[in-house]
């Protein structure tokens, strides 16, 4: 009850007119900058943080929360409308979201993303306020072997969800895994597949690959199709907002996404990408119309969007309870806290309760502000698609290169953008799915590092991988995801409903 009182007081502060104005400005700025691909919430917050220093602590925290959520939502908007994911956790959103937008359902896609983010953000922030200490104790007990099992689970569920041809799906996945090898190996310090090019030593940037495969590959494909693809994109077909069926199909994915996102986000090495993958795979499995997946299924937007927002709140659990910055965004937030002269650590809740509860209250307000601002804007956003095609695609390319240049003004990076764009075109042309490439790039290095850490700690004993109960449960789930459909077939004599092609 004490925490409720503290929270209520925080909300009262945040509701003062001046602070509402700061929340509004923060959300607007965050959305505007976050829309740029390659500039995710972490960079958005880093770039805009100096603005908040001019305000008093309450005002600046609120603006800060607004920028953070605005940056996240901006990334989703770009994913859905322009197929240019602004950050790695909104890559999955682009899969179904952009298909919806092209089919004139951009409005419902943006709306389910916004409402799902709000629902997930609110529930996860409540979780942060009420059960953070319990969650963090569990999260901290995860060892490298448990994370490795989590990666295995992600691999198995995701590969079951992408594409109908095993050969083609695995080919794409292995291309991604190969790209993930590039750069300096964290454990040994050795450069792999870098061929003496210094720009390759840091590896392939996930957003560069995603933007190239999705946006540039798509642009090349449409250009190559020439007159054949000369359909006009209708910005709005049917209702601009969600209809009754959309609501019915969205609310469960929102909740499931939240349940996946919050705990995984709270794990020190969990991240925000894995919950989006898991959510996508799960929704595809549970969907009554799996054939819609790949052609714009609203569940594929609602679930992952809820998952990444819940994960974003989850990241704050170790940050606020233990002072552990477990993501780039959290590290930037830490820098922000230090500007107020406080150092997040295990004692933060005790030493600076007003600021902590102020921040949590600000997150609620920013979240609500985002929803109130953006729902009316959905109609305007989708009009973007009414821009004549030459300018629309020219604009998409300007956008894609701008995001890359803004984060890292390097010609080699731009060169990679073009090369991966061509790869995306070839994959599309010959019916290879795109998403597994990105999945391989994200999950491959994570799985490798965790496995090697686990084996180093156990001095080479592979049994360590099976000695933790958490790891065992996760591995069992992975086996179920992989062989479940086969078992289903054996038992019932029917084929399990496996989804349609992704691309």
């Amino acid at each position, binding site marked *: 009850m004490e925490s409720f009182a503290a929270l209520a007081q925080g909300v009262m502060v945040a509701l003062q007119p001046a602070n509402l104005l700061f929340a509004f400005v923060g959300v607007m700025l965050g959305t505007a900058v976050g829309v740029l691909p390659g500039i995710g919430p972490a960079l958005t917050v880093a770039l805009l943080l100096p603005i908040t220093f001019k305000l008093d602590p309450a005002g600046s925290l609120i603006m800060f929360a607004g920028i953070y959520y605005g940056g996240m939502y901006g990334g989703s908007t770009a994913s859905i409308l322009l197929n240019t994911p602004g950050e790695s956790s909104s890559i999955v959103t682009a899969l179904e979201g952009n298909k919806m937008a092209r089919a004139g359902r951009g409005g419902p896609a943006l709306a389910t993303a916004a409402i799902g983010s709000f629902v997930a953000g609110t529930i996860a922030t409540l979780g942060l306020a009420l059960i953070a200490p319990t969650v963090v104790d569990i999260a*901290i007990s995860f060892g490298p072997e448990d994370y490795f099992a989590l990666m295995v689970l992600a691999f198995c569920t995701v590969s079951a969800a992408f594409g109908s041809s095993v050969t083609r799906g695995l080919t794409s996945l292995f291309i991604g895994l190969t790209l993930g090898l590039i750069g300096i190996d964290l454990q040994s310090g050795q450069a792999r597949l870098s061929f003496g090019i*210094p720009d390759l030593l840091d590896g392939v940037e996930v957003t560069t690959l995603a933007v190239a495969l999705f946006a540039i590959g798509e642009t090349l494909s449409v250009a190559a199709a020439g007159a054949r693809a000369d359909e006009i994109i209708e910005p709005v077909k049917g209702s601009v907002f969600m209809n009754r069926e959309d609501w019915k199909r969205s609310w469960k994915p929102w909740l499931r996404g939240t349940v996946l996102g919050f705990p995984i986000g709270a794990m020190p090495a969990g991240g925000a990408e894995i919950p989006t993958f898991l959510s996508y795979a799960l929704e595809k499995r549970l969907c009554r119309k799996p054939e819609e997946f790949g052609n714009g299924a609203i569940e594929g937007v609602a679930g992952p969007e809820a998952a990444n927002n819940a994960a974003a709140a989850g990241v704050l659990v170790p940050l606020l309870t233990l002072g552990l910055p*477990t993501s780039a965004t959290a590290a930037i937030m830490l820098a922000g806290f230090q500007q107020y002269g406080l150092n997040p650590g295990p004692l933060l809740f005790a030493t600076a309760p007003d600021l902590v509860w102020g921040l949590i209250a600000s997150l609620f307000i920013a979240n609500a502000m985002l929803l109130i601002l953006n729902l009316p804007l959905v109609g305007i956003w989708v009009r973007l698609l009414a821009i004549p095609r030459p300018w629309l695609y020219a604009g998409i390319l300007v956008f894609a290169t701008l995001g890359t240049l803004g984060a890292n003004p390097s010609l080699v990076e731009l060169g990679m953008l073009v090369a991966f764009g061509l790869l995306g075109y070839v994959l599309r042309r010959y019916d290879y799915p795109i998403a597994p490439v990105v999945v391989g790039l994200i999950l491959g290095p994570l799985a490798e590092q965790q496995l090697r850490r686990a084996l180093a700690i156990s001095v080479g004993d592979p049994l360590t991988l099976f000695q933790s109960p958490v790891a065992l449960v996760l591995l069992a789930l992975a086996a179920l995801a992989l062989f479940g459909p086969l078992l289903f077939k054996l038992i019932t004599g029917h084929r399990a409903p496996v989804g349609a092609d992704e691309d």
Partner: protein
Amino acid sequence: MAFRVRPLSRRSTLAALALAAVLPFGAAQAQVGDLRIIAPAAPGGGWDQTARSMQQALQADKLATNVQVMNVPGAGGTIGLAQFVNGSKGDPNALIVGGYVMVGAIITNKSPVDLSQVTPIARLTGEYEAIAVPAASPLKTAADLVAALKADPQKVSWAGGSAGGTDHITAGLIAKAVGVDPTRINYIAFSGGGESLASILGGKVTAGISSLSEYVAQAKAGKLRILAVSSAGRLPEAPEVPTFKESGIDVEIQNWRMVAAAPGITDVQKATLTETIDKMAASKTWQDILAAKGWANTYLSGPAFQAQLAKDIAATQVILKEVGLSQ
């Protein structure tokens, strides 16, 4: 880094920030005129923050009118360094921010350019390395850890930053100092401070090695125990923690950040730049920034810094060879 709440200093920092944001590009000429600082890291990182803090301090105190920060991230700063060495030869208005991490990266990445090709101006700030163990660990002192290390180096797992970085180098130096083969240390690299800290708090590893500031708050809360720190004397933020030397480990290391000028500038130009940076470091704005960010002032300029730099580079080359990261 201690728990500091200093409203006065914060206000002036805010004023400086406000000024910096309002007047990013002045037009008039001043003492040094235009300056261009390369931050060889992505926006938000440590070197970027250092460069932008310099920008604030130099502009706020009118030591230079127009200071521009350019980010050239990648490969431990060596990409930015290469661009700086090749692109600003003899340019008296070009500066680059760097640090100890760059010394190691130049060696392990076999960088074609190195720090002998720039004109070092001054060391600005620094952090010290510390060893910590979980609160429940049977190891009570650095001597206990050394004993465990001598018994079987493979059984002692160290959590720290990426291989070849400052944390790894420090672990290698410790092993060497106590007579253990540095190639046999069981070093587990983590990509972020939070992740490695979590592995120590969760008791997954024997010990952690990182900059002291990462551990102070945790130690205050009794979640972990700091065994020793790599400074010459005890530090104000953790006065109860002995130094490595006190614990019988002959290792002293500082993870510093510095600023350097372009290659091929004249002695007069170098003197002018050194004077400007000396003034900046002494300014109240800079001192306030250091306090707000929790950066220790380890300012050192002129020949003293160059001698220290040469010593650090030589020692790093030796230890990286010994841990097997360079030939």
